[in-house]
């Protein structure tokens, strides 16, 4: 029986060599998607600390980073810039605190990304909008890594390249490329220790103690956490679906309400913020404006007495398309059919 099996296997191998069986085109993509899943899982499973270089718009900035997880799914992270004025970000599960010593400001956001991990089914749908392939192997910060490329199938999203640690899946180098194949933003570890034990000192804020008396700009989520904002998007960019809709106050504007809608294609996300013109601080001069920070484009315009801010790690046209088709539901309902 054993011999027979081996014989059949050998026969199959021989035939496979002489008459190659049609290999499904989806097969290499499946391997690449599996690598992405490994990457997504790494941020929830792997401890690491080191320094990384952020590059955008011709400028580089080096930061120290530490990331610890516990078996209960808790995450504790710290980021501190090493170039220019010190700035620090502490993320504890769902809360993100930015300490900005130069301006003596503390920014607090109650919702981190832990509630929105890149889930398996989202990764599987990535193949609909990106060609996902495994590329060459490489070495970053002394660690062997595997390049994974996501090439968009349209011009609504950017190409992404990740070189992920072959053992743990941790992304060691991440690049975002525009339609001309130019790198517009990159993250690269320059020193890295993977898998160290929890070290409280590495994630303890250096500024929390001295920040008493600093200006605190806190964003709050309304009690009615989610719900219908009363706004609709007539023409959603292809492949983007609504992740959630919630109401919040923006940092430094307590007591105000801003609707926050989030759309994603599984990797890139677009946020839509809608607030009455009366509460928009000096940003609403009525003229549409387009800005960028790294791979993120930010488009602002006024719609029906509201200041609308649409931003996402997408090409400008994608956020603009979404912003242009945003309407209050009442207007839509009033339109003749």
């Amino acid at each position, binding site marked *: 029986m054993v011999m027979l099996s081996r014989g059949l296997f050998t026969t199959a191998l021989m035939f496979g060599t002489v008459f190659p069986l049609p290999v499904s085109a989806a097969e290499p993509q499946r391997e690449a998607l599996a690598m992405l899943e490994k990457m997504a899982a790494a941020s929830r499973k792997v401890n690491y600390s080191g320094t990384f270089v952020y590059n955008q718009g011709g400028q580089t900035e080096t930061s120290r980073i530490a990331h610890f997880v516990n078996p209960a799914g808790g995450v504790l992270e710290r*980021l501190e810039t090493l170039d220019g004025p010190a700035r620090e970000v502490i993320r504890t599960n769902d809360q993100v605190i930015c300490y*900005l010593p130069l301006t003596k400001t503390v*920014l607090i956001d109650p919702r981190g990304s832990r509630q*929105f991990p890149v889930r398996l089914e989202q990764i599987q749908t990535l193949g609909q909008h990106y060609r996902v392939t495994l590329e060459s192997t490489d070495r970053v910060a002394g660690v062997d890594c595997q390049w994974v490329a996501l090439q968009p199938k349209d011009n609504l999203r950017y190409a992404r390249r990740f070189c992920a640690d072959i053992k743990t899946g941790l992304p060691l180098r991440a690049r975002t490329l525009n339609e001309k194949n130019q790198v517009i933003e990159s993250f690269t570890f320059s020193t890295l220790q993977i898998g160290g034990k929890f070290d409280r000192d590495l994630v303890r804020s250096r500024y929390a103690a001295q920040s008493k008396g600093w200006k605190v700009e806190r964003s709050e989520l309304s009690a009615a956490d989610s719900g219908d904002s009363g706004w609709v998007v007539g023409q959603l960019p292809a492949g983007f679906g609504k992740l959630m809709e919630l109401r919040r106050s923006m940092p430094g504007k307590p007591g105000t309400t801003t609707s926050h809608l989030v759309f994603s294609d599984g990797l890139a996300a677009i*946020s839509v913020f809608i607030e009455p013109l009366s509460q928009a601080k000096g940003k609403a001069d009525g003229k549409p404006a387009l800005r960028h*920070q790294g791979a*993120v484009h930010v*488009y602002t315009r006024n719609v029906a007495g509201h200041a609308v801010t649409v931003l996402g790690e997408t090409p*400008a046209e994608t956020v603009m398309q979404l912003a242009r088709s945003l309407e209050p539901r009442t207007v839509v309902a009033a339109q003749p059919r």
Partner: protein
Amino acid sequence: MEEISALMDDELDGNDARQALLRLGDSGEARERWATYHLIGDALRGQHAAVDVAAKVSLALKSEPTVLAPRSAPRRASRTMTFALSAAASLSAIAVVGWMALSTHTVSQSPAEIAASAQAPAVEAQLVSSPANGAVNDYLLAHQGVSPSSGLQGVATYIRTISAQSETGR
């Protein structure tokens, strides 16, 4: 047409330029095209067209300095911040605007606006992006928290939120 191009490329000196312009006659359309080309040329070179064009126009049209003013004023009044092309826009103008649309990270905003305003508003196209320089960090912070990219790359992506913070203060 060639003279307009030569004028635009600064191949003629100030006096020849004026002569060439005068030879174009009193055709408002030709004059307007010349002005338009200059505006677009300045935008391409990343100069502040509002200043440069006004200077060039007044230099070239010293003998009749008021010609352009009444034409451009009402157009500016109805300016929108979008690129727009009239149906009659020349192919080269389309190519120039197309080039700008592809170069959103290299051309500053105001000359592009002005280049756009030189055309009659018809079709909405792309704005030119300028660096955020910390102006929208509050929105960036709220966005980072919900983006799958943050889930993939951890707290590192928050560098965007605090990057350039020092330049603007709050």
